[in-house]
């Protein structure tokens, strides 16, 4: 029993490590290859590695359960992220070719935003569909902590940027930071009950 718990803990740590490593490597690829086509690979690695690691952990750790609502959430999230990347690549490609002038440009610019807004809707559906009140509470806590953390970071960065101390960051980075930080706040929120 003890060895089983220990191996589960190790496997969980390994998956968290792999997810984190994917994010770090993806970020490094984006920063080191800025302006080249490799940024897409980095962004994809950053987005998908935590999801894949979480899915592997949920299927391989003894006693880990994939509740129906969580399974639907994972499937929807994976699908919408694939759509997001395809749409984003298309929109950036059109922008690069100078085809986003005029009113059509607004449509092209807003198209990548739609899947990201959709992620928030998917998160809301998870809270609505999860019938286990404890898991709902942990998930809600993780969302609130990640939201608070992201708003704090945005506030600090905004003032630093206003006073010319840091470079400009596009606003779409705010929800991306929120989603990324869920990988941290989720385990922290669950830890309170362990």
């Amino acid at each position, binding site marked *: 029993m003890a060895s089983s718990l220990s191996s589960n803990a190790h496997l969980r740590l390994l998956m968290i490590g792999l997810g984190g490593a994917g994010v770090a490597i993806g970020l490094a690829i984006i920063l080191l290859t800025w302006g080249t086509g490799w940024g897409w690979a980095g962004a994809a690695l950053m987005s998908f590695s935590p999801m894949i690691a979480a899915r592997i952990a949920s299927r391989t750790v003894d*006693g880990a*359960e994939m*509740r129906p609502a969580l399974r639907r959430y994972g499937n929807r999230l994976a699908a919408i992220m694939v759509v997001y990347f395809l749409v984003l690549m298309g929109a950036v490609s059109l922008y690069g070719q100078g085809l986003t002038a005029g009113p059509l440009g607004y449509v092209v610019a807003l198209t990548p935003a739609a899947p990201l807004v959709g992620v928030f809707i998917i998160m809301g559906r998870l809270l609505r569909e999860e*019938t*286990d*009140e*404890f*898991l709902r*509470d942990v998930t809600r806590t993780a969302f609130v902590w990640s939201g608070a953390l992201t708003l704090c970071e945005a506030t600090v960065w905004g003032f630093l940027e206003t006073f010319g101390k840091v470079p400009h960051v596009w606003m779409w980075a705010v929800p991306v930071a929120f989603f990324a930080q869920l990988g941290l706040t989720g385990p922290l929120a*669950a830890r*309170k*009950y*362990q």
Partner: protein
Amino acid sequence: MNNRLKVLRAERNWSQADLAQRLDVSRQSVNAIETGKYDPSLPLAFRIARLFDLSIEQIFSDAPA
């Protein structure tokens, strides 16, 4: 809040997973309730009480341990 969930479960030779399945909740949920780290809502407390055929007060207590 204190509870006798672990004792009641052991009397029936149920694992946490067994109890979780009977209550239609996660095993983590049962563990958190048993260890007193999570207080169930009134509807869940009623479900637990019905499962063991006891009153809520016979399972949960707000008296110091």
